[in-house]
């Protein structure tokens, strides 16, 4: 169920992943994550809903490094986005935008696009 939902939202074939870990090895934000990108895929495949409440999708900077290097062409960036969307589409904002001061417009607009429902 979770895997189907993620596939529908991301357009990616999660079952193509063979857990080589190349995504996690190259991820610049991996240090800050509670689950590594390849672990996120494993949890989705096992139907473990814990992954929806994990920090990982929100700390993903969507830099496309993982998907660019994936030997199976799985764009994990889109899988992270799908996990965010599951939350955001319940009309929940991840951050409060009105307190964002001293940031360039591009940071504020991008964050609003990615963190609010």
């Amino acid at each position, binding site marked *: 169920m979770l895997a189907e939902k993620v596939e*529908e*939202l*991301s*357009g990616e074939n999660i079952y193509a992943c063979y857990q080589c870990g190349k995504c996690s090895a190259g991820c*610049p*934000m991996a*240090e*800050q994550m509670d689950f590594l990108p390849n672990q996120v895929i494993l949890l989705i495949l096992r139907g473990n809903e814990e992954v929806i409440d994990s920090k990982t999708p*929100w*700390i993903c*900077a*969507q*830099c*496309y*490094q993982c*998907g*660019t290097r994936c030997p199976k062409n799985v*764009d994990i*960036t*889109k899988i992270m*986005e*799908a996990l*965010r*969307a599951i939350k955001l589409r319940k009309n929940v904002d*991840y*951050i409060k935008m009105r307190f*964002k001061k001293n*940031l*360039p*417009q*591009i*940071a*504020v*607009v*991008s*964050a609003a*696009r*990615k*963190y609010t429902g």
Partner: protein
Amino acid sequence: MKIAYYPGCTLKTDAKKFEESAIKVFKILDIELIELKKWYCCGTVYSLTKDNLMYRLAAIRNLIKAKEEGYDRLTTLCSVCYNTLKQANEMARNDKEAMNKINSFMDEEIDYDGSVEIIHPLEILKEDKIREKVKKPLNKKYASYYGCLLLRPKSIAIDEFENPRIMERIIEACGGKAINFPLKNECCGSYIVASDKQAVAERCYRIVSNARRNGADAIITSCPLCHFNLNEIQEEVKRNYTSFSGLPVLYFSEIMLEALEG
């Protein structure tokens, strides 16, 4: 040569010096950047979910504006705008079903088919021409920082995505030394700065320290968000790592102007 130019929000405010220096540099090199008469926010890094096309409308509307004003090529300085416009344009070229939906939704506009070409200013610059025009060769060592959005996904890359050289060639054409910089295509943390500044401070620490260890006197970039994360966030890094010594972060056009104006 004349080319249509899309500025985007940050080039008119926080990154004004990027726009000003780039317009001057291009003028010296006989390239005129002509700002679109009417433009909107590009929509920035929109949601990548497959089922929601609404997010792509802003980018497509800007491409329609370029077409309406009679241009078949469009350039933009900001890496985020470049990535957004280029990816939306790729969709317009390759996903007919999505474009039919978007075109019928925007029924007051002309239909869009992907016929405008999005090109990054770094792709227009010619090294020979730069060499001819240099008045005062740069005598410093520079680390070229590309970040993510100029190179990925592969379909929109301005150069080889794992080892781009386009900025290095420009530095050398201006008489500077381009150092080896393995973290040049590692993301700076992007808009995460709005939700977790410390995570970005860690990125800034790693990237700037790596440039310094490889002998750079300064880092150059072409993205206002990378510029902020690598430059302003250095203050945060200094609080976390007392031994950290920073580096100046400049737009590629700023060092070019220095060399070309003399």
